[in-house]
């Protein structure tokens, strides 16, 4: 019986050496080790053995089974590996082809800039105030110290609807509306973005409709040095911590003293280039201390409070920031233009 077991082992191991695939391997396993397989068949004859022989043969039988099983397991693993390899090979794709993106739109560049500026001032404790685009002559001009017949005021330059109602030419009327809404309370700290309209022929640098954003601060002890401090902080958050500002005396009817503000040219860092006309400076906003008459119109006593205001053109900032060549691109809504601003 031992001989038969040994013979079975060598036969099985022989056959297993040449087995071709997983199915044939399984057939061999059933043939030798299955419930009705060869090994079981031989061991069934153990009943006729003596008590001494039985454990010996039993052990031989276990050894044979273990030997065959080991080879089967080894073969099995080999086949599985080969199968995996084949599958991986078959599943290989060209990873250099483009992926499937979902479409993403872009916030309009002007609104991107407005949001950025709003966020800087919100961080400095400002709220955002808005007002109507169709305004009264009073709010747009008169309360801003531009009485009728003022030289800086020209029917030709504004889109009037009636004698008393027009498309606002500046966001400054929001200053008056804010002051009136505050009812004499301080402090006032607002930033006012919005569309404005002037009777200008459109060209690469002019648009009859454009955007402004302006700020207003009123308090019991607001100084021009605070205005400088505020603008410096804004400019550094907007353009970088190396930036400097420079104030030049200027004139606006609603501020006194008034200034125009230059920032370090971002292109050359102040050394002078084509963009800044070799001055090292770029003009970006106008500002000043709120004119006493304007404070009065807003319901404040100019002896009790002072304030500063500043304003800038959003298009100009966007043109400079992105190097855009023509202001009219902002309103044509060409998707080739808009899609360039999709970056976060």
């Amino acid at each position, binding site marked *: 019986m031992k001989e038969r077991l040994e013979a079975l082992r060598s036969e099985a191991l022989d056959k297993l050496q040449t087995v071709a695939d997983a199915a044939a391997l399984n057939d061999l396993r059933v043939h030798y080790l299955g419930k009705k397989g060869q090994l079981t068949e031989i061991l069934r004859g153990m009943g006729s053995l003596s008590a001494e022989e039985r454990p010996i043969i039993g052990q031989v039988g276990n050894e044979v089974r273990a030997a065959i099983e080991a080879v089967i397991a080894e073969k099995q693993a080999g086949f599985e590996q080969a199968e995996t390899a084949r599958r991986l090979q078959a599943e290989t794709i060209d990873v250099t082809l483009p992926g*499937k993106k979902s479409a993403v739109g872009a916030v309009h560049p002007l609104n991107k800039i407005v949001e950025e500026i709003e966020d800087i001032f919100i961080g400095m404790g400002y709220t955002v105030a808005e007002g109507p*685009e169709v305004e009264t002559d009073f709010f747009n001009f008169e309360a801003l110290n531009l009485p009728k017949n003022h030289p800086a005021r020209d029917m030709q330059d504004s889109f009037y609807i009636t004698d008393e109602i027009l498309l606002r030419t500046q966001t400054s009327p929001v200053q008056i509306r804010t002051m009136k809404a505050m009812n004499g309370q301080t402090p006032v700290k607002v930033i006012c973005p919005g569309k404005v309209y002037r009777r200008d022929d459109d060209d690469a640098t002019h648009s009859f409709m454009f955007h402004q954003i302006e700020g207003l601060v009123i308090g019991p002890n607001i100084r021009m040095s605070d205005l400088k401090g505020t603008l410096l902080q804004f400019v550094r958050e907007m353009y970088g911590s190396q930036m400097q500002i420079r104030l030049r005396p200027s004139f606006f009817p609603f501020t006194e003293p008034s200034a125009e503000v230059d920032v370090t040219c971002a292109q050359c860092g102040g050394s002078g280039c084509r963009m800044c006309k070799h001055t090292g400076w770029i003009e970006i906003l106008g500002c000043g201390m709120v004119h006493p008459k304007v404070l009065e119109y807003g319901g404040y006593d100019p002896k009790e409070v002072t304030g500063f205001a500043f304003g800038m053109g959003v298009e100009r900032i966007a043109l400079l920031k992105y190097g855009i060549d023509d202001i009219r691109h902002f309103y044509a809504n060409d998707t080739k233009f808009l899609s360039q601003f*999709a970056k976060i």
Partner: protein
Amino acid sequence: MNVSYRWLSDYIDLSGIPAEQLAEMMTRGGIEIDSVPSRNAGVTGVVVGYVKKREKHPDADKLSVCTVDAGTGEDLQIVCGAQNVGADMKVPVAVVGAKLPGGLNIKRAKLRGVESQGMICSARELGINDKLLPKEQQEGILVLPPETEIGRDILDVLALDDSILELDLTPNRSDCLSMLGVAYEVSALTGRPLNLPDPAKDIYSAAEVTSDYVRVSISSPEHCSLYTARYIKGVKVAPAPQWIQNRLIAAGVRPINNIVDITNYVMLEYGQPLHAFDAGKVAGGRIDVRLAQAGETLVTLDDQERKLEPHMLVIADAEKAIGLAGVMGGANSEVSEGTTDIILESAKFDGSTVRRTSRQLGLRSEASARFEKEVDQDRVRAALDRAAGLIARYAEGLVTEGVAEAEVSAKQPAVIDLSLSRVNGMLGTELSSLEIKTILSRLQFKVEASGDDIWKVTVPSRRGDISRDVDLVEEIARLHGYDEIPTTPIEGPTTPGSLTKPQAIRRELRTILTGAGLHEAISYSVTSLPRTELFAELAAGAKPIALAMPMSEERSVLRTTLIPSLLEAAAYNLNRKNNDVALFEIGNVYHTDETTLTRLPNEKPRAALLLLGNRRTAAWNRTAEPVDFYDAKGVLEQAFDRLGLTGRISYEAAQPAGFHPGRTAAIVIRTERGSETIGYVGQVHPETQREFDLPDAYVAELELEPIYEYADASIEYRILPRYPAIERDIAVVVDRSVAGGALTETIAASAGELLESVKVFDVYTGERIGSDKKSVAVALVYRHAERTLTDEEVGEAHARVLVQLEQSYGAELRK
């Protein structure tokens, strides 16, 4: 205002301050200098020559051969092509070795076989803008006055060795529309003293008295506060001296004759416009300042007949108008070559009166520009005397004794209270009393102490822009230097910064819509009238709001809806081969029920979107998918989900104007006030699409105010289900007209609280179920939160659903 650096040096010593440095100093002080061009465009080696002899060129009809003494010690032979060259003339000569603008180098040359030792120059060849030359000098070579010294450098003769400061003045600084005003400013900036002209010293009175020749009066005192005139006899009208002409040209004013040039010269010097009338043409020796009469006309100096209106101020003689006050003189009293006696006018006309007239007639001049900004009444007489003196000297006139004048009121100087604490409190500086007083005295403002560090400051009349203490604070700040003001943080309590709810939602919408693949558009708020009528329901009966003076028909009316702007943008994109367009815009529309506005219109914030072309383009691994109605609706649904509004929103088939009647839904919001339509989503009507030359386009527009009001970002967490759900699918056959949305609503209402969700997963139409029918397949999910459902419970609920569907819609279960 163009300021000649050399001319300015007459009034203030500019040594050590070159023009460029002066420009920078003035700009930093508040008078912006645009540029500082040199008057010399590149001329060297050009001198004054005397043409001794002119002969015809032997071989060329149009050329002549001149013998010229250019002070070089020997006569030069120069071939010249100009027709106006002649013997006994002083001309500019570019001798051999000279350089001219444009890089031209003068060499010895042969012209048609004749040697030429230089070139006789025209003004243009010397780089002078010939528009600024007297008419007779615009053609041919430049002819110089006979007394010009031979051999003298032309740069010196024509004062080309000079720079021009081009001032870009703010409207408040009209005091710098004069050389004297600029000199005062430079004196304040540099601290150097002024050397002002003394107008009186040049007056040569005759034995005759002005009042025998002319009397003046003001009939319209609210429009003219001072009128003065001098009478000058026996003038000789001729070209002005070269130096006056040079200065006028430098300032950009064309010389005409000595009388006109002197009035212009004094206007540039004093900022006071003057006018000279031919006294022989002034009837009755009378001048009156009055308003025009109805129907009156006047031919002005430019030979245009002007119809005058009763608000226009005129200068009149005993019979007729002879000038438009402050705007332009009349042709009927113009100084001409035959003029012998003149009446010289210097006056203060009201700025807004002059402005109104000059605007209305489209007549703007150097004079009107100055009157509009209010001239300095204190300079009216000084300017008159200065001009009279120059005319006496350079036009050989005799100035009669006395000034004819009428004065309504003299101007009182402004006296302003100022304190040290106000200055430093406003600026954040720590200036001393002395520093402040020094600055003000450099401006020639008078400072008198009226208390401890409190002053009364008297402002000279030349600075009409200064009337309040803050104006003085600005003067102090700019002369102290804006750079010297410190940089400080705001003192006082901190304030929280934030966005309002509408502002935050608007930003959220941008995030959602860009996330859905749409680009944000901004389009013009004005459009054409027909565009406002395309989408009547969205315009909601608003009356058009028209601009009084539009730039064009296309931009003449405020928009009442947003969609037309997006349709225009779509057409623009298609023209540029951007074939897939996905845009949205958040902006205002303008509604009113008034035909003529008496109050501000309602500015309604809205959002609109447009989809056109493919949802996604074809790629190597997928086909293109055109957009349809459900893409547009899906974008909205996604937005409503994100804004917590889905539970309030429903959609109803609708047929608003401008939309495809079978492919449009009204967007309805349910609120405490009831249900209200807040917008539409649908395909654009094919006719409207054709109007914009567009293929199928899907659009939506909705009101944002209800969104702002009801958006709810609060999140209510629900415990995750612990018990299994039971899913049941049904397919029912109903009439085609039955809305799918109604079916799911009925299912939700009838199934009871065990129903967790209901979702349409298929809609079938076809022959097999009849042409007027459709089959709608719906997946229902039932679940109980606290236990496992039994088949019986679900069966009951499901049966209720089927019964209700049958009763409501005649729905049959599809086999």
